């Protein structure tokens, strides 16, 4: 399957999830058993995207701060995210830490 086709299918699927209840006839509301799991999609998916990207180096586990500068940079960036909730500040602090450590190590 080409990348373009993948993108179009995701685009159509995304529109349909947005339309879902709005486009439905009648006055259906979402049952609690369906709402409950959706509350945890964001934390679960985002952590699944973040953790492997910072704890793996060249495809292997590396949790040693001395050899994995991304881990240290991400921990500092997480602290900034927690204190400020500012996306730009998180990127700046994370990237700057990575560059400094890469220059030093």
């Amino acid at each position: 399957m080409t990348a373009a086709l993948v993108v179009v299918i995701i685009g159509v699927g995304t529109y349909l999830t947005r339309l879902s209840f709005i486009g439905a006839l009648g006055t259906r509301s979402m049952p609690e058993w369906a709402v409950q799991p959706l509350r945890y999609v964001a934390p679960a998916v985002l952590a699944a995207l973040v953790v492997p990207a910072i704890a793996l180096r060249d495809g292997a586990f590396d949790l040693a701060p001395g050899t994995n500068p991304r881990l240290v940079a991400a921990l500092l960036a997480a602290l900034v995210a927690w204190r400020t909730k500012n996306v730009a500040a998180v990127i700046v602090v994370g990237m700057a830490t990575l560059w400094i450590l890469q220059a030093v190590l």
Partner: protein
Amino acid sequence: MNQVSNVRRRGTLDGSRSVAPLLVGVVPFGLVFGVAAAGSVVGGGLGYATSIIIFAGAAQLATIQLLDAGVAALVVIATALVINARHLMYSAAMAPHFREFPTASRFTLPYLLTDQAFAVSIIRYDETTDPRYKRWFYFGAGITLWIAWQITTATGVLLGAQVPESWSLEFAIPLVFLALLIPVVRNRPALVAALVGGGVALLASGAPYGLGLIIGAISGVIAGVVAERATR
């Protein structure tokens, strides 16, 4: 000026102003996405097209990342749709209000449904009963975000071609996800969902077809639900 166009202008402007502070998070995200797309196998052209076709940042970024890693097409699609499943929740909450809109709006306006447009609209809908105002307010919020997203992602694509590899700019991708993650970990079940989601995704990172991400995500969702039931 007649009353109808007055409501249209006031609603659109109010919606636009309400999301303006949220653009602080959207601008760097859009730039990072554009740069990442330009540097991936997807390329700047198709990468930018996802801003129009998908128009959902986290799903776009994950799609680019997975396609670049050579992950199987069906797994890329499934992962992106899991990320976007939260729109079902927003759609359900907006449905009673959208039911008062003209039919054409009910089918076109959901395209603009984002985390931010939902958040500002659902708060404003508590304070107003005029369906025309509600419609234009949502439109103002949605279109402002859409325009900002188009401009920033296109700019990122144009900048992306100039960025040397030694800058390790691909690290900005997990940083953006991290910036989105921290604020959603609001309570203990959400923390459990994040810890299990991240931990399982790490352990499953060697899984075939790039299934690690979706296995981690589903494990995290289940863990969150179990944790919520346990704390009741």
